[in-house]
């Protein structure tokens, strides 16, 4: 199914994330990635959410989001106009037979080893979701102990900002 990403600028208050995700749950929009963070202004938080569905589903989602009073602005993020990144931490078993292969793969993907013990290797990697997916696939040849990825953060290229949409 086609995936799409929207950035949502919301009032920076407790419970707002719950209001947004509650709407997703109630109307059965599937969340494939979600990140929340503070922004350049204390007044707002930014939610970057990736969901899946056709154009109608996407429009529905955006229209339903606009009905939440805490939602200040929404930006539809198209792949071509945006920079999108995820951070991955992956822990694999440190097996002497394959540790060289793991290192080479990590190097090829510009990963960084951030923890190294007799039993395990932890690699940090930044990139778009596809790169991260591909790297994880590669690591499946070895014994993956644990994975944690942050979800997508996305900004539009150029000087346009989400706040400019509604003159906040």
């Amino acid at each position: 199914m086609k995936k799409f990403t929207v950035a949502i600028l919301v009032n920076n208050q407790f419970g707002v994330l719950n209001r947004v995700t509650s709407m997703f749950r109630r109307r059965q929009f599937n969340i494939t990635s979600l990140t929340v963070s503070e922004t350049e202004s204390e007044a707002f938080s930014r939610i970057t959410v990736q969901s899946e569905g056709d154009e109608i589903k996407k429009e529905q989602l955006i229209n339903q989001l606009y009905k939440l009073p805490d939602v200040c602005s929404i930006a539809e993020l198209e792949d071509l106009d945006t920079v999108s990144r995820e951070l991955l931490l992956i822990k694999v078993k440190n097996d002497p037979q394959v540790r060289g292969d793991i290192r080479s793969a990590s190097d090829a993907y510009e990963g960084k080893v951030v923890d190294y013990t007799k039993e395990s290797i932890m690699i940090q990697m930044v990139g778009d979701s596809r790169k991260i997916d591909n790297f994880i696939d590669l690591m499946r040849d070895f014994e993956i102990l644990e994975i944690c990825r942050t979800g997508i953060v996305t900004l539009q290229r150029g000087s346009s900002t989400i706040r400019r949409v509604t003159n906040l």
Partner: protein
Amino acid sequence: MILSGSDIIVRTLIEQGVQVVFGYPGGQVINIYDSLYKYRDELQHVLTAHEQGASHAADGYARATGKVGVVIATSGPGATNLVTGIATAYLDSVPMVAITGNVTNTVIGTDGFQEIDITGITLPITKHNYFVGSIENLADTIREAFRLAKSGRPGPVLIDVPKDVQVAKYDYEPQPKVAPDEVFPAKDIRIQQAAECINAAQRPFLYFGGGLITSEAQDELLQMAETIDAPIGCSMMGISGVPTDYPRFLGMQGMHGHYACSMAMHKADVIIAMGARFNDRVTGNRAKFAVGAKIVHIDIDGAELGKSVNPAHGLRGDVKKTLQKLLPLLKKQEHPQWQATIQQLLEEEAASLDSREGMTPRNVISMLNRYLSENTPVATDVGQHQMWAAQYLNLKTSRRFISSGGLGTMGFGMGAAIGASMGTGERTVLITGDGSFGMNLNELATAVVNKVPMVILLLNNGVLGMVRQWQTLFFDKHYSNTMLTDRQTDFVKLAEAFGAQASRALTLAELEEALNKAFACDGPYLIDCAIDRDEFVLPMLPPGGSMDDIIVRIGD
């Protein structure tokens, strides 16, 4: 001036033009009730028998007047008892402000006595809700709640106020009543495109819902009907939006809609929908709904466009303002062939109408019609009686049909009728059934105490008729838990026990006598009106069916 939080709540309600609040006291709102006592000359509080009744009363008040209905309840069970009422208002876009008390801030989150997370519970059934953790924001939060409740597509807003905030003191300065957000017509280009589509129509059909009433766009609708020579139909929520006997008006569409109306919508080539949301009770099987028609959908809530049906033209904007811009772009049209089709459908409908004598639902409601003034609000509960009311009532004025459409809340009627009567000052009719009435009949006490002029027409068939009808048609007459015949309730004695007047009607002559008394009575008057349990609501579009499956007569 420095006031307590509870005083600020009551003063802000008064400032916002509230004249009546419905509610029920309790431990965590006792301060608010003390303030209500203090300001009792400026703000009337109506004590109900149950918080649910209070929420429906606030709802009925709002539906009948267009003003924001206000309800107050205590924390815990008081708050949860509001939930059905809030959800009812939410599904039918009724402006309401619910104020609940809660335990003090220091106890919040510790499962204190009568503590409940009512903002969490009501998240999906309110437009928005607030937990007011500090008194600094109290008055402005209430103002904001009123603005939200009545802006755009109206709906309920809940404000949860912990007890310590009610006790604390803070500066209060009265403010003017907040105005709802300005509404806008749809974009010019969309209106232009829609006009072209409508001008090209051969079989146009105008279809409206409750949004037309909210937007007060009746005049524009009728003008459009005359200009493009189109029949008019409505959803159940639209009833009373156009006078029932208006010549172009075909009535209600949907599962139990009027035959000619449903068929005309089915045969139309362009459907112009205004303030309606194409609920599944309206469309039946969506894949087979109005397949040949282009839909022009006007709604103030953009999320309704494309939610249930895919319109050729989705116009997001206020119905009235959009129609005002659309009207000058429409060509004067005449569709003699289409009108001939409509005429034929009306004849078919007339031929299939129930013409039996005696206590049939149609004869009962027809007799009631003779007693209604132009301004009489008619509330209903939910079930067969509701559909008979929707099919046979003759209403002249907008906001006079008070019925739970979206949520279909049995037990809605008693509270709603009380609220509608108090809001309009008119004698109000409640059409109910023995099932629905049994749910919230405790509000008879409220009607008696407040001498609410109210005619309760109880269509008593001794069964849960609507479910039983489905069991008859689709479940091999397995009448699972729908027979109330073993109940020994004497509704006349029951009403009298509450201090209301009542009588029983087994024949139309007795009904006439009872109605004469009821419409002359100062307070509530109940008529226990016997209806045969095998009376069905027809026509019926089977659930998930299309117009091809319509059942007009049983046994066909």
